[in-house]
């Protein structure tokens, strides 16, 4: 049995499951936060566990997690209530045990991890990237206006982006979302107080193009994204321009860079993820960040990689 945990809308899951169906491989899909029944017993004779833990030949945590809170309770409390937060903490103890146990049992037949996504830390990752001799953008996180001003003065061209996840705050007057990557200058500081919640800034790295790599178990698939021609997207290709989509083409990562990425993945304890790089006008590769559960359908389509086929094969051939 192959189990895939994923969001309902995830197209790569749909496509991969078609190939698994073609191979007549028994497959189970657990939607993100779909309640699961479970049993864990630990005594002096050993421990045993049942539920999504057992009976798998491969387990792929594509996006999201299973949920060990029954639907009746889950739907009863608002996520903001203290009692819910308490239940949620308990639930995390269970899911963390389940994931650890499953990874031990399945050994190398388990890909992706909710807890890896949860502990993904941009700052630690930059340190790890540096430690394997990848270049990184000079970076600063601070809650002080003074420090921020100094950083901007020193690095001139500076950008800011989300430190953790993108902002998504629905409210009465509409939804507040973060705007991806934006430039920030000294004049932006005028309206700010002396101290604020953490702000993440980096020197703006000029680029020939960006590179998005999808790493899955032992293989890397890369795509170059040319955004420089188009004023609307020079800072970050995620500020989409639909009429003239950025040129996205297959890219062959030089082996030296690929091997650094694998070293990074090992240190970050990731077996899959999407890595963003910049290729500078000087021909250098600069590491930006990794998203353990990032989207890669557009990469697969633009480069004609058929990643859904590759992934299904890697489950059935392993």
């Amino acid at each position: 049995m192959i189990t895939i945990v994923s969001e309902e809308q995830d197209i790569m899951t749909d496509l991969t499951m078609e190939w698994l169906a073609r191979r007549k491989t028994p497959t189970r899909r657990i939607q993100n936060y779909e309640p699961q029944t479970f049993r864990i017993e630990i005594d002096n004779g050993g421990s045993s566990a049942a539920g999504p833990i057992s009976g798998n030949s491969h387990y792929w945590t594509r996006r999201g997690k299973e949920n060990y809170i029954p639907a009746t309770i889950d739907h009863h409390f608002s996520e903001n209530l203290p009692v819910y937060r308490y239940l949620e903490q308990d639930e995390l103890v269970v899911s963390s045990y389940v994931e650890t146990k499953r990874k031990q049992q399945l050994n190398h037949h388990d890909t992706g991890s909710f807890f890896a996504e949860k502990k993904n830390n941009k700052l630690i990752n930059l340190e790890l990237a540096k430690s394997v001799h990848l270049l990184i953008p000079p970076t600063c996180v601070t809650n002080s206006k003074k420090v921020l001003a100094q950083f901007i003065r020193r690095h001139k061209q500076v950008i800011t982006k989300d430190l953790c996840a993108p902002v998504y705050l629905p409210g009465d007057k509409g939804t507040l979302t973060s705007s991806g990557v934006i430039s920030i200058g000294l004049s932006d500081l005028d309206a700010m107080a002396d101290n604020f919640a953490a702000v993440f800034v980096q020197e703006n790295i000029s680029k020939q193009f960006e590179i998005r790599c999808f790493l899955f178990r032992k293989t890397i698939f890369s795509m170059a994204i040319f955004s420089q021609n188009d004023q609307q997207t020079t800072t970050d290709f995620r500020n989409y321009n639909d009429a003239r989509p950025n040129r996205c083409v297959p890219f062959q990562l030089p082996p030296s860079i690929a091997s650094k990425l694998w070293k990074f993945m090992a240190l970050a304890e990731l077996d899959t993820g999407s890595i963003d790089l910049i290729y500078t006008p000087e021909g250098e590769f600069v590491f930006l960040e990794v998203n353990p559960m990032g989207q890669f359908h557009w990469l697969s389509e633009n480069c004609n990689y058929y990643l859904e086929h590759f992934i299904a094969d890697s489950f059935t051939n392993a």
Partner: protein
Amino acid sequence: MSVQPTYLLYASCVPVSGAKRKIICDLQRNGYVPIPDGLYEILTRHRGKSHKDIKAAYENKYDQIIDDYFKMLVQHEFAFACTDPNLFPELSLDWKAPFPVFNAILDRDNNSAYDLRSAVSQLSGINCKYLQLRFFDPIDGAALTELLQYFETIRSATIGLEVLVPAAPGFTSTDARKLLSTFDRLNKITLHGSPGEFSIEEVRNKRFLISMPTSVDSEAHCGIIDPELFSINIKAFTEAKKFNSCLNGKISVDRKGFIRNCPSMQEDFGHLDDTSLAEASSHPDFRARWQMTKDEVNVCRDCEFRYICTDCRAYTQDNEADGKPLKCGYDPYTGEWASTAPSNRLRTRVRAQKTASSSPA
């Protein structure tokens, strides 16, 4: 790494040569542009060579022209300057589908007696994703609703459903809108023979209602070749390189219940009453029709549009199996469209229809 400046086409920009003209197919931005013969040669025979070497290959006689060519290509974002072509592989021409049959047409008229439900459930059984139901005679809205409900009960594998129905008192645009708002699998309803102008309406997210004045009263309303109908994208291009761009993965049941590659084809592979769709679609001769690429079709094989054009194997020149589609007015040897080419009116209609069919998947 030695730095050898050169220019490369973006991988999604693919040059194709015809008897008279050459084009670049832009598979990412869905268009094509004609290019001079000389440029075609530079882009294909000399791909990946340094700018200097390309000029030298022409004994430096055309340096200015070559510079101008690349300047234009870069300006229009077909090419980019680069120093290491090895980092930029060409686009893979792979084309794959998990299940062999993914496209079906079921035709119905007042005399059709075959079991529509059986056809629908069989299609789901062979994992066919897209289905077009064509009603030539007026139908009753309740019957269609029942059929759509049936789709839900069998949890059909068919995710993209398109219905053509004659506009009639028993089935109006109001009925159509209601169905489109109710059934998720239903992507499009076309009301043919509608009073008034051609129109297109997005009833909800990617669910379209199309009204057209022309009546589709038989399968003969098919096979039109027009630049407005070209499919200029990676999926269609790679498929056309390896398979027939109309029949690949297709199965149909004509109004009398005969199973064919398409309702207009001469040859049948049995009747739905005694042959299953799975059986018919695995017949070697049935599959053979999927294989004929435009590279094997007369005239088309010399046409620069052969990988972005649709095809038609039912209505062909001189009725030959490898004849050019009859309803194509293009002559690749002169590079001209016949003046009998479809009217502007048709073109506008076709364009609108294309917007609506831009894949819901």
